[in-house]
């Protein structure tokens, strides 16, 4: 038998690795059964993992990627702060986004486990979303926070339990600053219970196989996980791949898009994700830690390049992260981080936009780009208690080479998390009536492979009053398509009151809007981006889309160039003619390289402007301030806002970054197309 130096056979190796994952599964089972808040046990908004003594993630299971991937940083912060001062019976609590956390609602508990000789063996860790951690609104996060103090209690890594003794003072202080403290205490005990279970199992495993063997098995397992991903990366052509995208931030009520940039470098068998050029952090919710941003990068890389296999620290090693300090991807005191999920999703988009240049066949159109958390809260007279309705209706996913994007399906960074409740649960528990829940017709980005459609969920208020909040990105700037595919419809919110439809001046970001009896909140989730030119979509598939109601007959004609006759059959001749006409009408400009160009404007944000001559803007149907996208030789588009200037007719000036994103050179033609933006009554900042 081919033994390694300390003698571990391949079978024992598998048994130990399986056992470590089984420990995490047991932790999960404990949490689900013992937690108090439905966000944890119905939405699965928690994760568990096992860490080695150096803070490396050794095992995880069915855990929320957005949670579990940044967890190693949390463990390292805890280790750093308590180096040499960790003892059996200790437990570390943290939620600080600047020191190991994600956003304040995600509360992490770490418990060091020692062997009989007092040597540190493992850290079981639990990160769970607590429904409320204090702050200015119920549920703690608000789309319009401007500093972290508004978002709740910040817990740097602290020893909440020391040698088995709970720090009562700290506990009381925390509970006094959170809503519904009984439930929070229940959630804390659930996490602690899970760590205790893990401790017992680890002791049993080590007693059976010896720590030496377990450690060796872990080492081999991490190394081979690492090798697996490195092998895939090595197959890619070396080079720098650039992309940029935006997050939505309102500066004094005016949209001030925030620039997110990546330079993804493939160098041999490693990847470097450098966010240089990214916007400095903003006094709004769209900031996150580098660990959270890294989770977005990892999810995108793993899910496109190398699905399957286990995920542990070994899989993270081939990826290096860099970001400017105090930027939206490396947040510092005292910027808020409530929308870390939105920022992480933009890291997914950025990474995929860059990867599309390397593995064009393996990517998809952009996914629904928001967590879209909606909250309606008030007093439930029927049950004589407070209620908070919380759902995050999933949107569509991007089309890909092998299929249309799935409809109403959570983004890959959410994993197995369900985003909506049963209608009958909601109506039994809250004074709300779900008027309807249907797929959102025409929301999917048009493409050879269509982007998935989102949903329309309508909630009627059945009690005298309530308050509505939402925190969503991609409500103005839609998910993009690839290979010529169109973007998906952005998220959309409105309130139907009698005969009126109320929309919001800050699309996607609403805090505590009062709603009354019989008002209907209408939530529309975004579509996914299309893949490939919609004119190349099989006409019969477009016909079926119309039959199924995913696409209207009007969009079939306008977007796909497919004309149906009175019996809903494809009119082949009319279709060919329509497609030719659409192709003919596409608008192109000639690229002029201009590396001195200062392409960005904004107040606290930064956004690209595209200078067009008056006649070109008119030909495109664009006016100043409109959003356009440019399509070059690379799969993903470049977005910018139109400025009508003295530009030469027929030309568009592009800086080096833009030319790299599009893969075009001076003199090349790029296609421009206009994107619809929702009305912004206050206009844009800067």
């Amino acid at each position, binding site marked *: 038998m*081919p033994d390694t130096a300390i003698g571990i*056979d*391949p*079978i024992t190796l*598998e*048994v130990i690795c*399986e056992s470590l994952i*089984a420990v995490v599964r*047991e932790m999960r089972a*404990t949490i689900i*059964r*013992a937690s*108090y808040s*439905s966000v944890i*046990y119905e939405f*699965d908004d928690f994760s568990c993992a096992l860490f080695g003594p150096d803070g490396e993630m050794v095992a995880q299971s069915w855990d929320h*990627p957005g949670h579990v991937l940044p967890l190693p940083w949390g463990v390292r912060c805890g280790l750093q702060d308590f180096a040499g001062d960790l003892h059996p019976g200790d437990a570390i609590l943290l939620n600080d986004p600047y020191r190991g956390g994600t956003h304040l609602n995600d509360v992490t508990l770490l418990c060091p486990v020692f062997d009989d000789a007092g040597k540190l063996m493992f850290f079981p860790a639990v990160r769970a979303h607590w429904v409320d951690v204090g702050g200015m609104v119920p549920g703690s996060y608000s789309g319009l926070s401007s500093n972290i103090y508004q978002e709740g209690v910040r817990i740097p890594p602290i020893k909440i339990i020391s040698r088995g003794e709970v720090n009562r003072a700290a506990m009381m202080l925390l509970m006094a600053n959170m809503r519904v403290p*009984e*439930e929070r205490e*229940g959630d804390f005990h659930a996490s602690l219970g899970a760590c205790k279970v893990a401790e017992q199992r680890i002791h049993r495993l080590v007693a059976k196989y010896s720590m030496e063997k377990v450690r060796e098995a872990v080492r081999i397992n991490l190394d*081979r*996980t690492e*090798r697996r991903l490195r092998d895939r990366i090595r197959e890619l052509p070396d080079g720098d791949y650039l992309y940029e995208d935006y997050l939505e931030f309102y500066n004094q009520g005016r949209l001030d898009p925030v620039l997110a940039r990546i330079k993804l470098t493939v160098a041999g068998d490693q990847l470097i994700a450098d966010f240089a050029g990214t916007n400095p952090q903003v006094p709004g919710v769209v900031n996150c830690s580098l660990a959270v941003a890294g989770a977005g990068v990892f*999810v*995108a890389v*793993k*899910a496109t390049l190398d*699905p*399957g*296999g286990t*995920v542990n620290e070994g899989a993270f090693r081939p990826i290096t992260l860099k970001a400017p300090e105090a930027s939206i991807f490396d947040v510092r005191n005292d910027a808020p981080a409530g929308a870390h999920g939105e920022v992480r999703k933009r890291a997914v988009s950025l990474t995929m936009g860059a990867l599309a240049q390397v593995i064009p066949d*393996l*990517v998809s159109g952009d996914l629904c780009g928001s967590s879209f958390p909606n909250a309606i809260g008030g007093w439930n007279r029927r*049950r004589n208690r407070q209620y908070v309705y919380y759902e995050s209706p*999933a949107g569509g996913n991007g089309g*890909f080479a*092998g299929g249309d994007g*799935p*409809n*109403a*399906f*959570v983004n*890959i960074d959410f*994993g*197995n998390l*369900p985003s*909506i409740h*049963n*209608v*009958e649960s909601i109506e*039994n*528990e809250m004074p709300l*009536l779900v*008027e309807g*829940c*249907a*797929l959102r017709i025409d929301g999917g980005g048009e493409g050879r492979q269509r982007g998935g459609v989102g*949903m329309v969920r*309508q909630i009627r208020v059945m009690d005298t009053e309530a308050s509505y909040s939402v925190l969503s990105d991609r409500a103005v700037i839609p998910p993009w398509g690839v290979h010529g595919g169109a973007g998906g419809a952005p998220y959309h919110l409105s309130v139907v009151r009698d005969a009126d439809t109320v929309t919001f001046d800050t699309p996607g970001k609403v805090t505590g809007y009062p709603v009354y009896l019989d008002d209907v909140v209408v939530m529309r989730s975004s579509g996914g981006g299309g893949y490939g030119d919609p004119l190349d979509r099989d006409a019969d598939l477009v016909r079926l889309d119309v039959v*199924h109601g995913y696409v209207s007959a009007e969009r079939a004609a306008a977007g796909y160039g497919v004309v149906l006759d009175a019996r809903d059959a494809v009119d082949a001749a009319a279709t060919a003619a329509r497609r030719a006409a659409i192709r003919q009408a596409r608008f192109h400009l000639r690229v002029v390289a201009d590396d001195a160009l200062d392409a960005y404007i904004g107040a606290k944000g930064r956004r690209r402007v595209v200078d067009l001559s008056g006649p070109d803007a008119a030909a495109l149907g664009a006016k100043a301030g409109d959003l356009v996208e440019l399509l070059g030789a690379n799969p993903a588009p470049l977005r910018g806002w139109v400025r009508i200037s003295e530009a030469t007719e027929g030309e568009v000036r592009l800086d080096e970054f833009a030319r790299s994103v599009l893969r075009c050179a001076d003199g090349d033609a790029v296609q421009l197309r206009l994107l619809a933006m929702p009305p912004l009554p206050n206009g844009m900042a800067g």
Partner: protein
Amino acid sequence: MLWVGIDVGGTFTDGVVYDDATQRFTFAKAASTPGSPTDGVLAVLDMLDCRDLGAVARVCHGVTIGTNAILEKKGAEVWMLVTRGFRDVLEIGRTNRPVLYDLRTLKTPPLAPRTHTLEVTERLLFDGSVRQPIDAAQVDECLAAIPDRPDVAVAICFLHSYANPAHEQLALACAEAARPGGFVCTSSDVLPQFREVERFGTTVLNAYIGPLMQRYLDTLSDALRQRAYRHDVFIMTSNGGVSTADRAKRLPVATVLSGPAGGVAAAVRLGEQRGFANLITCDMGGTSTDVCLIEQLRIPVTDQQRIGDYANRTPQIEINAVGAGGGSIAWLAPGDILMVGPQSAGADPGPACYRKGGTEPTVTDANLVLNRLSPESPLAGGRVALDLGLATQAVTRLGRSIGLDAPTLAGGIIRIAVARMVSAIKEISIANGYDPRDFSLLAYGGAGPMHATAIADELEMTRVLVPVGPGNFAAFGSMISDLRRDYARTRTVNLATAAWSDLDAVFAEIEAQARRDLLAEGVPASRIVLSRTAGMRYLGQSWELHVELPASIDSVAGMQAAFADVHDRRFGHRSSGSVEIVNFRLVARGEVDKPEPPPWPTDFTLAEAAFDARQVWFDGAWLDTPVYDRARLPANLRMSGPLVFEEGGATTIVPPRWSAVVLDHGELLLERD
């Protein structure tokens, strides 16, 4: 009188007959006949000498036809009538991703596609009150759009129908009038509980296999009648009881775990009779292994399971299935990681040693290479010759690529298959707070007794039981199962403000219904047993616990205390918060007479039972091992491993450090030293 139990599986149709005059059991296996399953049933009846069923008291039947139709996606064309505004309930579902870290995952398409989902203008509220009345004429309009073919089934699914079935019943009446003889079902009949995604999904699943099961059960009943059978055919249901064929035709979704449920029912019976109150069952077949935990002889029933890609919320035995069986294929994942299953060689080509063209090594091949299985192995359906050469070739080829010789790799394949089964058992035991060391392992299915001690070793379990006729245990189970029906009524009541008389009245109403139902199915009043449970939770939780409410509990305080006890036991803490009931539940059983296995003969000797000896691989070495015919083993004689027992349908391995003894009624008890 005779009792007959039959289990139709994917590969084999198993039969068992019991004659109470001679107290004898007879077992048989015939190949299943998927095209026309009744043929396989008749074939096995012939093998059991049951050509005339005039003297048969009961035919009981486990059936996986519906299950296989779901797994193979060969069910009916389902059309759905839904509340206006909710056409997409199933397509949207809960929006979660079943596969992590894979961008190119597709969502499972619903069994009733969007084009087959029609909206009815109607709306009920959570308390059953009518917000928007239903209009029969509009229902008829919808029905007119549905094709009139026998393989089309209709599922009627309205919001809050669990609280008030009137709208669904009206639509059902319209459908029955418009489509006489066609399969129609309502969500309030299939699963009268809140949570529409799961209720509608389960109802559509019911419709999906409805026409198929209806046709099969009609054909079978006719064929049995022609053999002079005069009673109802009883169908094993997923909840561990049986139901009449008529009911199974209406609610086929309640039979999807029919096969495994039979085994578990038989396990409970065995535990009861032989004094093993805590059992973990391990039913290892060709492609998968089903495990189940039985504590204090209680069948664990859950309503949180899935079949294939679909949720099935009918009450069913809590079985954990893992894709590791005799036919599971060993392979190398990237990084040279040795894996076993879930891909299976199935019955065709089968393991390499079957000589049907299979070249990949399976668990069965590994057992053969290690001499644990004899090349002349007494497999199901007679003695099938197995090809040791082909098995060795297959194992050697894989071993060469990672530098392991054939016996080492074969041992590894078995250990990994065992590890997967161990992991499945941990999920139902340790993960729920049970210590497997407090349980005995009951091993059956063709491959169970061969791997049982290895599983027990990993879990530090010290006792393994192998029943008589392990290969036909499920068929036996259907024969000794009571009629069982589960009732549930969703009604949310806060105990803080509830009166016991009101709660009692709700239960009494369900009990009256249950009595009427069982009397109508021919159960004498004296044999009806009713037991109450309630789904309860602390206010603010949304995951309810099922709490048993024996007759001794007759107050609100009593209910509260019972809940707190269960909560404490499961989760390690109780709260002072308010408690609410989410649903009222009742299990109704119609008890039946059960055949008793006869005592094992006392006159067998070990010498008579011995028929072979061979070298068998145990933990890295070949050991001289005697082989005995299980059917002739003497009772109450303790024998030390290594040993091999062979019988029709199964092989039992007793490794060194384990001993074996035949109990009074023939079960094998294996114990670790």
